[in-house]
């Protein structure tokens, strides 16, 4: 087996162009996919529960807010899935049919009006997110945060206007309506003017004149300082608070997710293509019959190809991770876990490659088959739950389970971010055994 392994490496060395492509192509594809992933889909599916009673008017500082219009504006940005209760919203998020849920509480309008009147606590909207993958979590965070920021901005402007009108009344004076009655407020400016006029009638150095001077100074100072309130009030920007709850699943950071995708794509292409091509080459060079005539058993040959794939994928994936570590943080303290994830993923991809090479029996056909299967599997494995219908997503989950990409990515992500490695490793081991068994069957008609 050692000699066959050396032979395969020697053949690779003799094909520098092929080897370069085998290394560069998957790395480029991996980086492109990683870049694309960081953008996310345009309209995430979000469950929307509006508990505010219908047709409740909201008016702040004379400005009417159209809640129905706000809802349709919201649903232009996200795909709203209407739900009728908190339990239903939670269920949708837990099942992965939506990326998150936005719940507007029943007392939203009352509390907002309270904030505008300067009494009471600000209202809180609830956001439920499923952070089973960080891409989805980031997506929901981004969209809901931007929507709430926009709403907060409009509301805070209205609240500020109300407050400023009161302050203006205090400074300049004027009429003020309260509970159906009209009051006239003198204002600091008028107070100062009246006091200055009264001051001139008082004898110089008298106690009354000094007392009036103090009141005039206060009125002047108060008027000047209240002039700054405009800019200060504009900074009051969060009338609505957000209560975010993570439902079902952990929350690894996006870097770990993107790196794991890039590494798994590299691992997949290098290993599947190399092993499929290398096995098919044994037949194309007519060497298979000669080899299996007592020199090595078909199973031994498969194991040799597996080792070849694992060795090469380990090298290329470490190369990719090493390169990426200049751009993003990689926790090299978890090197043993990273190595285990690469080895397990490499073995499963190598077994898949052997099955494809055994089935295709020709180098060109096996390479084509490897491409045709690998790319869709990678993309299918990256479809976030909630972006397609539930039935289609169930089919996607079955497909994911049958190929090594999803468990390979899970293993890599866990290795990079302190997650649980055991389940994906067991999954990969099961797939390795299954694909090796399929390869062995394919070799029966190989010679």
């Amino acid at each position, binding site marked *: 087996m050692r*000699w066959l392994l050396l032979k395969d490496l*020697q*053949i690779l060395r003799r094909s520098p162009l092929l080897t370069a492509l085998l290394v560069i192509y998957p790395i480029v594809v991996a980086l492109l996919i990683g870049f694309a992933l960081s953008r996310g889909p345009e309209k995430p599916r979000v469950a929307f529960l509006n508990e505010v009673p219908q047709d409740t008017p909201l008016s702040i500082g004379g400005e009417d807010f159209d809640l129905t219009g706000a809802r349709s504006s919201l649903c232009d940005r996200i795909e709203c899935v209407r739900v009728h209760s908190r339990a239903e919203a939670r269920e949708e998020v837990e099942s992965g049919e939506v990326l998150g849920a936005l719940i507007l509480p029943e007392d939203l309008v009352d509390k907002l009006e309270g904030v505008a009147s300067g009494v009471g606590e600000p209202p809180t909207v609830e956001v439920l997110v499923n952070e089973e993958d960080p891409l989805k979590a980031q997506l929901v965070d981004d969209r809901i945060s931007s929507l709430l920021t926009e709403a907060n901005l409009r509301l805070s402007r209205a609240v500020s206007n109300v407050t400023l009108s009161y302050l203006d009344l205090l400074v300049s004076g004027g009429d003020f309506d309260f509970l159906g009655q009209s009051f006239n407020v003198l204002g600091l400016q008028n107070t100062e003017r009246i006091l200055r006029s009264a001051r001139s009638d008082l004898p110089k150095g008298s106690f009354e004149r000094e007392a009036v001077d103090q009141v005039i100074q206060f009125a002047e100072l108060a008027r000047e300082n209240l002039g700054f309130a405009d800019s200060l009030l504009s900074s009051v920007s969060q009338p609505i608070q957000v209560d975010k709850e993570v439902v079902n699943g952990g929350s690894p950071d996006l870097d770990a997710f993107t790196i794991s995708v890039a590494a798994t794509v590299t691992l997949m292409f290098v290993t599947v293509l190399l092993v499929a091509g290398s096995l098919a080459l044994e037949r194309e*060079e*007519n*060497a298979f019959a000669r080899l*299996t*005539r007592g*020199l090595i058993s078909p199973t031994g040959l498969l194991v040799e190809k597996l080792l070849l794939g694992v060795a090469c994928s380990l090298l290329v994936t470490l190369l990719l991770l090493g390169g990426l570590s200049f751009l993003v943080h990689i926790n090299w303290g978890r090197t043993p876990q990273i190595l285990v994830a690469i080895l397990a993923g490499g073995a499963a991809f190598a077994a898949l490659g052997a099955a494809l090479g055994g089935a295709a029996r020709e180098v060109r056909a096996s390479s084509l088959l490897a491409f045709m299967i690998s790319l869709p599997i990678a993309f299918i494995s990256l479809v976030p739950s909630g972006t397609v219908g539930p039935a289609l997503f169930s089919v996607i989950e079955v497909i994911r389970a049958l190929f090594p990409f999803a468990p390979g990515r899970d293993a890599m992500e866990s290795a990079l971010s302190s997650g649980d490695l055991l389940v994906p490793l067991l999954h990969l081991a099961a797939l390795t055994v299954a694909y090796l068994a399929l390869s062995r069957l394919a070799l029966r008609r190989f010679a």
Partner: protein
Amino acid sequence: MAEKPAKKARRAPAARPPRKPVLEVAGLTKRYGSRAALSDVGFEARKGELIAVIGPNGAGKTTLLSILAGIVRPDEGEVTSPAGSIGWVPQQAALYRRLTVAENLRLFAHLEKVDDVQGSVDEMLGEADLAERRDDQVSLLSGGNQQRVNIAIGLLRQPSVLLLDEPSTGLDPRQRARLWEFVSGLAGGGTTVIFSTHNVQEAERYSDRLLVLADGEALFDGTQTELHRTVDKESGRGRAKRDFETAFVDFLAHRGH
């Protein structure tokens, strides 16, 4: 391997030697579904014999050689080789074209667990007359030279019996002549060579004995002269003047093939 006229490469037919056989084949039967690829085929081969397995397409030649090589398991019958190992050379050159001639030989010598790898490689390069091209990639060799490397690999373990499956397929006349000179030299050195071919002239020219197969049955086992005699006898016209190909066709026709 010096180039010589092909005719000179022909060996004098060996008289049926009374020596102990190096290969004994008895009752070989192989079926693929309901079709019998081989039916009760048996023969013996002795040291240094050159035996041609001939017959029309689908006669069972490749199946017979595959069973003798141990690649295909027979349904019935047995193959014994008291003298030692059996070397096998597939019809298509089973070589790694990206490796050099020496690297191919070295790889298979390691896989065959040959004691003196480098010694065997050098010896085979000499026998195949490819020492000067040892560092050339196989993809750069002519078809004839590739076939000689292919045969040299089959000889690495110095087998007492060498099986060649249609060795001259795809070669031009000059390459064929050089190939047969090489093969005849092996037989002259004591290696028993059994080759399959559908080229009747080649079988006549280069073999000591013929094993004629048709529809999986062994119809004849003997020398060319014996085949002529059989045809003469069956035609009832006494010793007629006919070439070997005509005799062979008549022989098959008389048996309904």
